[in-house]
């Protein structure tokens, strides 16, 4: 059963061996073969845009710091709770970078330390009031930030994606009810709501990561749900969904194979931006004093120590400047990545030739 659609012509002089409708297909790159054109475009876009490369470097840097925290800032003794920032005494006055350790110094000197030019342990970035070591707090705080941030983002994304896809795909009354409920949650300014809920949860969970994390999830899923719902609504009207239905596909097949894969990319962008902003909110909470117990390695808390020295901040600048750099870089890294993703994925910016 072969039909020759090309009976008419075989132009003279045409280089032999090319079927008629071969067209001009560019051979696919190895990347495209491996992951498909959309992902290939995404990956290529991320690695060719200098800003997103910068973002990627920053984020990777933080991940490495978190992974190698025990080497970068060894705790005072092996087996001690590493998230408890070691204190070099209890003096209220911060000490500048370079001050030698007296008490609770790390239990061994890793090899990289010789690069700093010091033989004995010093407070690399100084201490806060109450003699918490800033370097240690920032290094282990990176772990806290990444762990808490990833957990919160993962759970809120799953909840949001579930609710969003149910609302978007089934529509009707289900959609209406879910959206009314969502509206109630979005009425509150996010930090306000999270602050209220975590202050209620503190008596139950005690001072730990939990109150803030739970509160951030309870008031953090709506963005995902809304975004995905909208994308599903627009995707399910597409012709290729109609084509799948015309072929006799089931609902689950259509959702999993056609609707979700095409609707998920904007959610990825949101996820990346959320990775940054959740950690910043988290830090804001512990800065305000609703969160972890004192001395827990957490960026927000280390900044909150600076509040006691507002008048003399120009003397104790290191109390604020180093944590500020860490927080700023962290937010910047994820935002650069998210922005780049957005630019790459925005269909309106795609393939425009005058």
């Amino acid at each position, binding site marked *: 059963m072969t039909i020759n659609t090309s009976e008419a012509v075989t132009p003279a002089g045409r280089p032999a061996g090319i079927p008629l409708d071969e067209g001009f297909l560019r051979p696919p790159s190895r990347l495209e073969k491996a992951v498909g054109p959309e992902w290939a475009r995404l990956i290529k876009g991320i690695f060719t845009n200098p800003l997103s490369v910068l973002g990627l470097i920053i984020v990777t840097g933080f991940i490495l710091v978190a992974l190698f925290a025990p080497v970068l800032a060894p705790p005072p003794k092996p087996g001690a709770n590493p998230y408890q920032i070691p204190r070099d005494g209890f003096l209220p006055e911060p000490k500048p970078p370079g001050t030698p350790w007296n008490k609770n110094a790390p239990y061994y000197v890793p090899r990289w330390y010789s690069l700093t030019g010091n033989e004995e342990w010093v407070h690399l970035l100084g201490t806060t009031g109450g003699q918490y070591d800033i370097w240690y707090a920032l290094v282990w705080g990176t772990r806290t930030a990444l762990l808490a941030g990833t957990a919160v983002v993962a759970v809120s994304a799953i909840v949001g994606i579930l609710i969003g896809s149910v609302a978007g795909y089934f529509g009707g009354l289900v959609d209406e009810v879910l959206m009314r409920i969502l509206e109630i949650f979005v009425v509150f300014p996010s930090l306000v709501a999270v602050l209220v809920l975590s202050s209620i949860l503190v008596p139950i969970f005690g001072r730990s990561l939990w109150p803030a994390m739970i509160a951030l999830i309870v008031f953090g899923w709506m963005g995902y749900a809304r975004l995905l719902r909208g994308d599903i609504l627009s995707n399910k009207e597409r012709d*290729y969904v109609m084509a799948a239905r015309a072929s006799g596909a089931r609902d689950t097949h259509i959702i999993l194979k056609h609707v979700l894969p095409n609707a998920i990319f904007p959610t990825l962008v949101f996820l990346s931006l959320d990775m940054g902003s959740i950690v910043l909110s988290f830090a804001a909470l512990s800065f305000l004093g609703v969160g972890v117990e004192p001395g827990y390695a957490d960026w927000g808390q280390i900044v909150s120590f600076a509040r006691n020295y507002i008048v003399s901040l120009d003397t104790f600048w290191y109390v604020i400047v180093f944590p500020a750099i860490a927080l700023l870089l962290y937010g910047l890294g994820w935002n650069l990545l998210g922005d780049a993703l957005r630019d790459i994925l925005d269909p309106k910016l795609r393939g425009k030739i005058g």
Partner: protein
Amino acid sequence: MSQKNGKEVLVSVNDLKLHFPIMRGVIRRQVGAVKAVDGVTFDIYKGETLGLVGESGCGKSTAGRAILQLLKPTAGEVYFEDRDLTKLSKGDLRRARRHMQMIFQDPQASLNPRLTVGSIISEPLEIHNVGDRESRKERVQELLRVVGLNPYFISRYPHEFSGGQRQRIGIARALATNPSFIVADEPISALDVSIQAQVVNLLDDLKAELGLTYLFIAHDLSMVRYISDRVAVMYLGKIVELGSRDDVYDRPYHPYTQALLSAIPIPDPDKEARRERIILKGEVPSPANPPTGCRFHTRCQYATEICSQQDPEFRNLGTAVQSHMVACHHAEKFM
């Protein structure tokens, strides 16, 4: 299969209606309906191509989708191989879809950009559990060859192809499960002129080769002539004329068909200069609020009082064997 005039009827559409509710007001009450398809009756014989023609908003695409049960009809029956599709269970309908397929207008929008050409074409096979992975792959390559594409392209993605090539992929997908009936919803209107002819010829060849039956939906009468055996003209949710191709083109009885025919440009300056054109007044009224009586009377140069009051009967002015149906009070005038 039921017979009519000695021909087998594959699809029989009986008084099909599809009304989209208009929800208005504070509590979204239904205040009316867009009568996209409003009582359409016709048969499609096995092995023929029925052309369904009309301007945008006349309900032709909606009718095509309602026949395939992709949109739930408000009323009426659709018999496919003597089974009423509107009464089938969800599972039965899904199984029946193997035998009836659709080709879409926009080849860009109807192919999932994230799937390879191979997965797109083999999807219907997977859904209906036809063959194993290896045999499906062979089938896909065969289908690609059939529609004039290089089977080597099986692992490529739709965006790499041109419009005409994408439409060929869409056709290959529709053919995958060996259907007997295909609704082609304006398959050529998004394509360039030189490519249109390629696709029309391909569809025509496939029909002869595979014994297909088409419902070919189009917005003008020019291409339909080349592919249809019979032609139905729709206006505002109703069929106004239905007859064999030659009857409709050479002896159009409905003034709307006449106007559509005269609007087709002729690529010949001399003929074009001599031709009398019928220019219709105004535009198609809203299907939410169609005119009373004959729906065409607001734009018809022959309209009389009766046209605005009475909905004309859809009657046969041809012979019993070769019917030529028309819905016009004054059709005799044009005989």
